[in-house]
């Protein structure tokens, strides 16, 4: 048993433990098939998967409907069989309340799978496993939704020391990982083995907060059952122990520097849910179609459900039965989650928890008071930042200074806002500053591109002008020489010769023009001709 380390800061939210236990009483339920599914194509960090289906098409369960458009991107699949009603912009599960390109599917109730090819996991090369992970849409289910196949690439350049499996689940209310570990521990253990094979670490550590004894037991049994030597380590319950950097710190004692990523320190971290889906994908060819979601808060029936991705929030309300005074719904935990913009918002790969909120459960924040620089936030910050300084500069829009104070190391865990005696919503200021900085960086990049293109264009025009002038000079010189020669032997013929030369040149030009007719206008289909006629009609000058 290796010693445990501590991370600095963090908080112990004063919420009663019943918030967690309430939803952990019942086993994971399988949510009934919804009447409609709205599957956003962009569900992971990285690229925007391009749609593979069109409205009217029949899809089967597990059929790929969005393909990864680059390496850091992940596929999206039809969660059940049915008809594609539309591929259009629909409201996203995003704090902005803006729409995103989604595939709307009407389930046919058959829940008919595509033909799954049986896979022999032992016969696969690591490259093939990564492709399977990408094409099965396996992404980090802890909430960050980073494509898992990219994370397993680290082993190519670095010797991995530790593989950390994150079962800490530190947010209050949330129990989806807890229940998954209790019920599907063996799948998780086998999924961990897949990551282990890809990364080849020296040891595997599964960190679980010590307030989940059943999960710890289940995982220990499962690890033994599958004949592995992963160590299941209970970690002290303290928010945010489930943050990747914090869990790595607690389990390995390694602190990830600000400008590096954990693989460079020989550690990689995966969520337990990710491990489970990886196993389903590699061993059975099943893509990620659903996820375990904790439905809790101000509800009659707090419980974990396995819900199809794309299920709109309003379809799952009957499962949780919110109480009458519920006024809004949060996605994610109470510390880091955000308010869903509408009941139309779908469940996505990042939705680990839906909390029905009421004024009694989460009272509106008391009025903000001035910062008194008490540094409670600095003591609570698990990243050892100075939130009061960040706040000071973010508030006055001094974004350069916020970056000097390492704004981008902030994981937005909410500890600082939680402890602030002045009730300052610090995290909101940090989010604001971050998105402003990103926007400025985008503008800067665009400006640089525009500048480069403008300069290139100017250079090209200069070059063209110079070349033209040169050609003209040559032509004039040639003409002068010709005239000189002509005037020497046949001065009377000069006029006729010139005319003949012009006629010959025009003839040549016409021949040349006929040769270089645009080729794509030959052999047109009837439809294309019709279309051209239509366009030409438009081009007729207005009367």
């Amino acid at each position: 048993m290796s010693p445990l380390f501590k991370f600095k800061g963090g908080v112990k939210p004063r919420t009663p433990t019943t918030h967690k236990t309430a939803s952990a009483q019942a086993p994971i339920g399988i949510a009934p098939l919804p009447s409609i599914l709205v599957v956003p194509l962009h569900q992971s960090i990285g690229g925007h998967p391009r749609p593979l289906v069109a409205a009217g098409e029949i899809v089967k369960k597990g059929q790929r409907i969005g393909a990864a458009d680059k390496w850091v991107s992940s596929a999206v699949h039809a969660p059940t069989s049915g008809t594609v009603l539309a591929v259009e912009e629909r409201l996203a599960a995003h704090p902005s309340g803006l729409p995103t390109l989604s595939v709307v599917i009407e389930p046919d109730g058959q829940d008919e799978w595509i033909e799954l090819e049986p896979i022999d996991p032992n016969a696969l090369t690591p490259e093939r496993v990564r492709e399977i992970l990408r094409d099965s849409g396996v992404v980090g289910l802890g909430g960050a939704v980073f494509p898992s196949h990219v994370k397993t690439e680290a082993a190519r350049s670095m010797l991995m020391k530790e593989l950390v499996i994150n079962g800490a689940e530190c947010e209050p209310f949330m129990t989806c990982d807890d229940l998954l570990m209790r019920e599907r521990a063996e799948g998780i253990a086998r999924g961990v083995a897949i990551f282990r094979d890809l990364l080849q670490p020296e040891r595997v550590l599964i960190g679980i907060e010590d307030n989940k004894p059943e999960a710890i037991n289940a995982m220990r049994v499962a690890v033994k059952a599958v004949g592995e030597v992963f160590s299941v380590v209970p970690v002290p319950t303290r928010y945010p122990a489930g943050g990747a950097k914090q869990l790595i710190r607690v389990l390995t004692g390694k602190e990830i520097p600000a400008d590096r990523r954990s693989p460079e320190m020989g550690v990689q971290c995966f969520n337990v849910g990710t491990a489970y889906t990886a196993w389903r994908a590699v061993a059975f060819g099943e893509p990620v179609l659903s996820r375990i979601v904790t439905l809790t808060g101000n509800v009659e029936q707090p419980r974990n459900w396995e819900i199809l991705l794309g299920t709109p929030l309003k379809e799952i309300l009957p499962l949780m039965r919110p109480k009458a005074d519920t006024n809004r719904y949060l996605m994610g935990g109470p510390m880091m989650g955000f308010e869903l913009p509408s009941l139309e918002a779908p469940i996505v790969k990042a939705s680990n928890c839906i909390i029905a909120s009421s004024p009694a459960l989460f009272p509106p924040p008391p009025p903000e008071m001035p910062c008194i620089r008490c540094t409670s936030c600095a003591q609570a910050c698990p990243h050892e930042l100075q939130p009061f300084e960040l706040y000071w500069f973010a508030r006055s829009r001094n974004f350069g200074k916020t970056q000097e104070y390492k704004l981008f190391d902030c994981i937005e865990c909410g500890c600082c806002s939680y402890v602030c005696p002045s009730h300052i919503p610090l995290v909101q200021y940090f989010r604001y500053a971050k998105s402003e900085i990103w926007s400025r960086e985008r503008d800067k990049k665009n400006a640089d591109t525009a500048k480069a293109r403008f300069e290139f264009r100017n250079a090209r025009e200069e070059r063209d002008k110079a070349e033209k002038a040169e050609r003209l000079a040559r032509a004039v010189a040639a003409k002068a020489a010709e005239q000189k020669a002509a005037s020497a032997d046949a001065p009377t013929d000069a006029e006729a010769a010139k005319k003949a030369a012009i006629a010959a040149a025009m003839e040549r030009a016409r021949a040349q023009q006929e040769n270089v007719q645009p080729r794509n206008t030959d052999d047109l289909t009837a439809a294309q001709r019709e279309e051209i006629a239509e366009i030409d009609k438009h081009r007729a000058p207005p009367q």
Partner: protein
Amino acid sequence: MLSAILIMALGAVVLGAALGYAAIRFRVEGNPLVEKIDAILPQTQCGQCGYPGCKPYAEAIAEGEEINRCPPGGQEGVTKLADLLGREVKPLDIEERPKQTACIDEQRCIGCTLCIQACPVDAIVGAARQMHTVVSTLCTGCELCVTPCPVECIRMETIHEKIDNWKWKYPVFEMKRVA
């Protein structure tokens, strides 16, 4: 009296000679200030400032031109220029508009290439008698292509907020009322 005049004259001659020699000996081409100003300008190359592009305007600012002639840079750009040059912040002389991108109505385009020639950043593709289109990611929204079009098929569209460019708003909360 005479010695005083002599001394001063001597000093002036010696120092003037030294400075004159140094000016020739240590001459440096280019003005680093222009580069710094150019880096602040938004590089839309739109010419709304009255200069043919951002670099010429940057040179003009370095020579003393007003700093509030650049609408695409916005008030923030003016503030940055004022900071750099130590001048007064002035309001923009033209109203600030939201960011736009050009859009060609493909039904009406006659393929005249006039807009292609007008585009300062080569963001319009097409060929003679073939349809043209705007590469929207490269378009700076300068509007220079709008007037040359003989059939008025180019319009400017405001860039709408999408999830990719959505920004968290500045937090507005009630402050506790004191007294």
